[in-house]
């Protein structure tokens, strides 16, 4: 069995978001880039599955659609334990384009499980994973909070409003993961960092594909009106304000 983990290269989640060129593009000046937190957890789970599989899972690969500046993120994933990596050398123009590129590689390599995160922390698309499944014409499960393999059967837990569903899924599939898939992300070991340098990283050029959407410009949220402070001794005033002013009671 082979697993592919999709990695989106995103600004560190504590980044102070700023825009430039008349608010038409993200200001990456001084920004620290990281593996999208969901993808880091997906990679962690993929490696746990491989280790617990008695050799059934032979390979955990990672893939990023991005320009060369995404390579530190890929190297980190290799240092954490991925066996090999793919990079499609292009700006990820939009989710449709990005998913198409990943599907093109997946067609050649036939992975059994493809992991993607529920959303990238920058553009918040929640799209790429499920789009890959449609390009490949295979099944997808979204809101996945656990994946286990028992007797060659893939068991998936899906979050639903107010509960969970437990599913059996036949491979191949795309699992779009969220909270719960792994508890703490793995961090690279010293040995991992050393071996990462020699692990295979295949770079290819993008295959022609339209993009369907474009980000025109950005806005920062309106600063909130000043918070109205109420004395702890007079909470009745709060109740009245919520009723008469905010009209939420």
């Amino acid at each position, binding site marked *: 069995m082979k697993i592919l983990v999709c990695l989106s290269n995103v*600004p560190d*989640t*504590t980044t102070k*978001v700023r825009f430039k060129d008349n608010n038409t593009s993200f200001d990456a000046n001084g920004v620290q880039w990281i593996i999208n*937190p969901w993808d880091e957890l997906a990679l962690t789970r993929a490696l746990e599955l491989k280790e617990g599989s008695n050799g059934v899972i032979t390979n955990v690969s990672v893939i990023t659609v991005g320009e060369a500046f995404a390579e530190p993120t890929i190297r980190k994933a290799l240092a954490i334990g991925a066996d090999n990596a793919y990079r499609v050398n292009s700006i990820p123009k939009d989710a*449709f384009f990005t998913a198409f590129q990943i599907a093109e590689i997946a067609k050649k390599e036939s992975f059994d499980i493809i992991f993607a995160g529920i959303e990238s*922390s920058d553009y918040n*698309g*929640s*799209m*790429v994973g*499920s*789009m890959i*499944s*449609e390009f490949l014409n295979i*099944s*997808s*499960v*979204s*809101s996945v909070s656990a994946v286990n393999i028992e007797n060659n059967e893939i068991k998936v837990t899906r*979050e*639903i*409003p*107010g*509960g969970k*569903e*437990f599913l*059996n*899924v*036949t491979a191949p*599939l795309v699992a*779009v993961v969220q*909270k*719960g898939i792994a508890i703490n992300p793995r961090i690279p070991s010293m040995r991992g960092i050393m071996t990462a340098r020699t692990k295979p990283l295949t770079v290819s050029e993008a295959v022609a594909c339209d993009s*369907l*959407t*474009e*980000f*025109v*410009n*950005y*806005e*920062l*949220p309106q600063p*909130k009106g000043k*918070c109205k*402070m*109420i*004395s*702890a001794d007079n*909470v*009745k005033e*709060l*109740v009245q*304000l*919520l*009723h008469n002013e*905010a009209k*939420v*009671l």
Partner: protein
Amino acid sequence: MSVLVYTENWDGKFKKSTFELLSYANEIAKKLNTETIGISIGNVSTDELSNLGNYGANKVLSFSDSRISSLENTVFSSIISQAAIKVGAQVIILSNNLTGKAIAPRLSVKLKAGLVSAVVALPSSVEPFEVKKKAFTGSAFANVKVNSAIKILTLSQNSYQINQSEDVAIVENFEATINNADFKTKVTDTQKTTGKIILNDAEIIVSGGRGMKGPENWGAIEELASVLGAGTACSRPVSDEGWRSHDEHVGQTGKIVAPNLYFAIGISGAVQHVAGVSGSKCIVAVNTDKDATVFEVADYGIVGDARQVLPSLIEAFKEFKAEH
């Protein structure tokens, strides 16, 4: 030509988020001079379906099939795309909830239709088609242009006001082809937390953070929630510590909620927490630290110890509820 809405049902009933979608879709349909059509999947009574007219649906297509018992993304996206082709949908609208996120991307590829997720407002223009969405986990908005003939949007919950009328919708059965081979996932078991208000549906949420000091103090949060008919939530460290169950965790890595009223009790207001609650209409914060960042996002604030403030809040709301 039409605007098509996926009208999701829960055990045969529609919810507020469905009504928001229809009201929103109807406004776009007016701009495009066309009609609003709903597509429903599963067993729903004709009354329930025709009532969707109250919220803006001119017509509802109803598909049901005994093979469908849970969400099968392949099948659902196939049915909606067949409906879209049949009614010549120019715009397709789904909720930005778990279901919408699972099927809209598949639909986008099937129809080669540009998808914008987490949309928060009506399109600023329909020609070219441009619409505003959340980005950077709530720290910004982006205006996105869609260049394809068909456009797909997933609408953030609580971001559009429901418009209600007396109109009823025409209900039609819809025939779509689905293949046995498309059912590749099988639900073997379901676990539901009963008796609790589902956070995504809650109008009011009372949420506690590390400032609550320990799980033994949650009685007051639960009591306040029960007085208000609210759901309960918590910050990430609280669920990490096991003080509360994981399904209460809100924020960037937990649930995204957008109630009318959100109480942040003993929560510092870290950016990752705020990312999950910034869509709330009104935020009330209680914190011992007058400089806590949570007061920058709150509408109303009380500086004080939760252990003293909560009992007086409970009393005050009880009094209010007795009068109203």
